[in-house]
């Protein structure tokens, strides 16, 4: 009986992996694009979730890290011909540095809850205004990344399947990191900080250091996402990278899916992605109507499922068991 269930779950995993690998080869480019965007926002949401969900430090300005990553790799590529793969690591490190700056300032002065959220928002707006006014960043025009055709070493390809596998691997990586955090000491410490900082301090948790650690990890990973975006669309400007809208896109999926859970952001992205596409497809003719419906669905999810879709599924499962 026991062996059979292991065999079953192995079979299930094998099947799932096979589907995920083979799927893009049978889909038209539009559907691959939808999948890429689902994975992309699942990746960003999962990165945000480490700081905002687990450690409970709600960042309203994650676009700052995203933009830093996007501009770092793009500028390095456009100006010095450095491969965006290397630029991505550079962007990640700069994202960490920004995390160090924001974190050491905010956490040192004890900014919590809405105050921390506003401070992160201020940082992302600051960076947006800087990139809007610097010649280096192309001001409001943004930067067009030169086409290289099929050049995987320059992080470019004409086929969307290439990007699908890149973002798939990135997402699996961030999922694995989150799982490790969730199971072990870091998960306990981050959650303890989220639930009650005083209690956490009283039992030996260096709350300052662990909040800083969370923002460093999250900042690094989010910046990598920025590079992916730049290479996928081959165009960046201040508003789409550093803008408030982007920050909202980043934390929306984990909120809808379930904050502080491993799979919440993936679930959120899997629901919101197709939802956005369907409402736009059905109601695209009426300017803005699809956004209103999208917004209405969002509001209802937040009101009726306060623990996100994942939390709701878990409570259903628990009810079923009892």
């Amino acid at each position: 009986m026991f062996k059979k269930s292991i065999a079953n779950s192995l079979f299930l995993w094998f099947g799932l992996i096979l589907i995920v690998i083979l799927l893009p080869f049978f889909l038209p480019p539009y559907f691959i694009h939808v999948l890429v965007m689902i994975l992309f926002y699942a990746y960003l949401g999962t990165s945000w979730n480490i700081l905002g969900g687990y450690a409970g430090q709600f960042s309203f300005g994650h676009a700052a890290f995203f933009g830093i990553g996007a501009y770092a790799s793009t500028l390095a590529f456009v100006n010095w011909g450095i491969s965006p793969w290397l630029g991505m690591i550079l962007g990640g490190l700069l994202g960490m540095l920004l995390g160090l700056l924001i974190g050491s300032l905010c956490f040192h002065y004890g900014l919590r809850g809405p105050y921390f959220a506003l401070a992160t928002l201020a940082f992302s707006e600051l960076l947006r205004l800087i990139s809007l006014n610097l010649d280096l960043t192309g001001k409001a025009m943004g930067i067009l990344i030169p086409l290289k055709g099929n050049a995987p070493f320059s992080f470019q390809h004409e086929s969307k399947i290439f990007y699908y596998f890149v973002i798939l691997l990135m997402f699996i990586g961030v999922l694995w990191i989150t799982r490790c955090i969730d199971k072990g000491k870091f998960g306990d410490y981050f959650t303890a900080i989220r639930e009650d900082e005083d209690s956490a301090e009283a039992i030996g948790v260096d709350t300052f250091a662990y909040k800083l650690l969370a923002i460093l990890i999250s900042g690094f990973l989010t910046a990598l996402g920025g590079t992916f975006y730049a290479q996928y669309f081959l165009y960046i400007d201040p508003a789409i990278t550093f803008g408030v809208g982007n920050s909202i896109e980043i934390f929306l999926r984990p909120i809808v899916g379930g904050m502080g859970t491993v799979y919440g952001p993936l679930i959120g992205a899997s629901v919101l992605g197709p939802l956005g596409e369907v409402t736009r497809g059905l109601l695209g003719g009426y300017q803005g109507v699809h956004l209103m419906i999208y917004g209405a669905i969002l509001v209802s999810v937040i009101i009726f499922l306060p623990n996100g879709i994942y939390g709701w599924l878990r409570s259903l499962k628990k009810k079923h068991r009892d």
Partner: protein
Amino acid sequence: MRFLKIENLSKSFGGLTAVNHVTFQVEQGEIMGLIGPNGSGKTTLFNLISGFLAPDKGNIYLGEKSLVGLRPHQICKRGIGRTFQIAKPFSHLSVMRNVRTAVFNWERTISGANRESEGLLKFVGLWSKRNESASSLTLMERKRLELARSLGTHPKFLLLDEVMAGLTPVEQQKMIELVKKIREGGITLIVIEHTMQIIMTLSDRIVVLCFGEIIAEGPPQAVAQDPNVIKSYLGEKYRFA
């Protein structure tokens, strides 16, 4: 000999002096009761010792070393644990992981931390609740969890802030036994409690605070008969049976 020494400690909030030139010493292995009317500075004293507040004047020594200026987690690592008057469990973590978080203070491996947490949960009688989320616990269970969690850090000194408050007499009796067992395990305790009967049976020595100052100190019987204590804490006409 390790001891905790409070020396001339003062703390004011604006015009209110919560703790005023307090000096006492806690010897290893004893249970020291800390009593006083509401607002007499007991919890402020705990917050000063555990590093949540910085004293205006005075010093706190653990052995030879001063604790003033250290952050709460550093003081915890030096071996001083505390509970909070209002139990503060990590609501969304399971009971087991609540305790495990504290055990990670010194244990590195997950399996080791799980084993230690198991022992602690069995000790306080919460093992059957290990997988429940802490938010589902009753008051009594929360207080026990708080106790298990502070023990998880391996303290040498433990500050208990009203762990009996709000419990039924039967529950209180169980808690008293638990506290006595903790002392037998070699942990020195400072206990804040309001119920006189409990503090009398539990403590080896009692310090009485009133308006931030120590007005009496000594063995329970002597303190209970001290006219100052009777007047300010127990009321003018109180007779100790």
